[in-house]
């Protein structure tokens, strides 16, 4: 943990070297997700509701997902450039150091500019919470927190899998983007609107619906089943198979030799 803080400190200082660029990037991150928000707003201005979900209800969904994505991205994006780490032989150096390799990969890149996106998510969340018409009892607050935590771990898991695949393919697989960036992009609406098949896929294979659609139903009072409330916990557990996959990849690691 101390080592990680050290990494974070170095990263922060190096990113602060280009202050204007840092601020512009953070603003840009903010605006990118803001334009997505505007997109949702305009869609609802025209259509009013989608499959029975109102604007403010979708906003809860959107902001929870964006919050967890931006947290996960800030700390776990090191895995995103992992293809590069493998192909330039950097990973050999990581392996010989007497520290956990996950920690070192994490430390290789920490994106503080994601603060822009995080801020956006928090603002939308702050707007959506009082306006969604939900009565915020203790259990619902717990559900909301679980959703955010579960989402963070889920995306972290996906980033780790993304990196784990690099052990076998050397390069990052663009296709994985459909689950990470795509999950963020399409998860802004409750996953049920995409139809049965997609919902099942995101329930049993990539458990995105567990942190999004089902607990949302509980939040909105459309179901009283307390099971739906604790489903995000399985989202947290998703990190375990991801980590196992990663370990499996490390075992099979062959250096590229450069």
């Amino acid at each position, binding site marked *: 943990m101390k080592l990680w803080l050290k990494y974070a400190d170095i990263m922060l200082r190096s990113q602060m070297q*280009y202050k*204007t*660029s*840092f*601020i*512009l*990037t953070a*603003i*840009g*991150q903010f*605006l*990118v997700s*803001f*334009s*997505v928000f*505007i*997109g949702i707003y*305009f*869609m609802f*201005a*025209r*259509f*009013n*509701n*989608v*499959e*029975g979900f109102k604007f403010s209800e979708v906003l809860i969904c959107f902001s929870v997902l964006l919050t967890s994505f931006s947290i996960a991205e800030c700390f776990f994006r090191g895995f995103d450039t992992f293809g590069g780490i493998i192909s330039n032989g950097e990973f050999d150096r990581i392996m010989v150091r007497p520290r956990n390799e996950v920690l070192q990969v994490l430390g290789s890149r920490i994106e503080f500019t994601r603060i822009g996106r995080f801020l956006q998510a928090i603002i939308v969340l702050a707007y959506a919470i009082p306006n969604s018409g939900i009565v915020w009892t203790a259990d619902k607050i717990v559900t909301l927190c679980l959703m955010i935590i579960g989402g963070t771990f889920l995306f972290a898991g996906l980033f780790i899998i993304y990196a784990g695949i690099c052990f076998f393919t050397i*390069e990052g*697989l*663009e*296709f994985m*983007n*459909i689950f990470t960036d*795509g999950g963020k992009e*399409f998860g802004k*609406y409750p996953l049920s*609107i*995409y*139809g049965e098949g*997609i919902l099942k896929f995101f329930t049993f294979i990539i458990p995105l619906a567990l942190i999004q659609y089902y607990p949302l139903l509980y939040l909105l009072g459309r179901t009283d089943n307390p099971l739906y409330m604790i489903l995000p916990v399985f989202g947290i557990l998703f990190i375990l198979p991801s980590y196992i996959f990663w370990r499996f990849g490390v075992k099979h690691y062959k250096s590229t030799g450069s």
Partner: protein
Amino acid sequence: MKAYFTFFKIRFINGLQYRAAAYAGVATQFAWGFMTILMFSAFYKSNPENFPMTFENLTTYIWLQQSFLALFMAWFFDNEIFDSISSGNVAYELCRPTGLYEMWFVRSLSSRIYRVVLRCSPILIVAAFLPAPYGISLPVDIMAFFLFILSLALGSFLMVSINMLIYASTFYTISPMGIRILSVSIFELFSGAIIPLPFLPDNVHRIFNLLPFASTQNTPFLIYNGYLSGKSVFHALLLQIAWLFTFVLFGKLLFRDALKKVVVQGG
């Protein structure tokens, strides 16, 4: 002129090497397009009378957008150009007897085009065989098809000419990240990459239409699916030409100014 064409050819052939990456990209874009269509279909089911175009028009738009993504993706920049500016290698480029603006223009254009050449046909072919409301339909008539091609060309030129401004700005700021991401966010919203522009509220739509961003991808796709027809096609084309002219002129002026003061950072 011949030199630029040769330059285009080199970059183009070079780019065609990366076929495996392109196929992975095709799969991603296909899944992406499919999800987008499902999303719109949910809105369509909830409130069909508020749909600004027919559902077939929309799916056609989405598939065109996915097939020609590489022409219009806002986040795509040639990193070598940024590197050559911040590392000082631009000095070598200046030694060549070719215009810097023209050379980089051709270079950016060719790297966009080879990506499209690799990616668009598989997406278009599969999309053509999808069942009726979900697939891509033929252009409304042969005239619309030719106008679409013309407009597509103008749109991609315009796209590159806007990119050139971003490259030029690197001469002044050294680290391009900030301006890049700002331009991406503006583009995504204003060009109809997030939602097709006709889905915006009418008065917002009218304003967005006049901005240069709408002239990149929105115009050609709407010509293809017949949303724009008759006189409005020609207005849209004229607007595209006017913006293209403005941006090329502005870009060239900016390059000239930047090169007057350029400081090569050693190395």
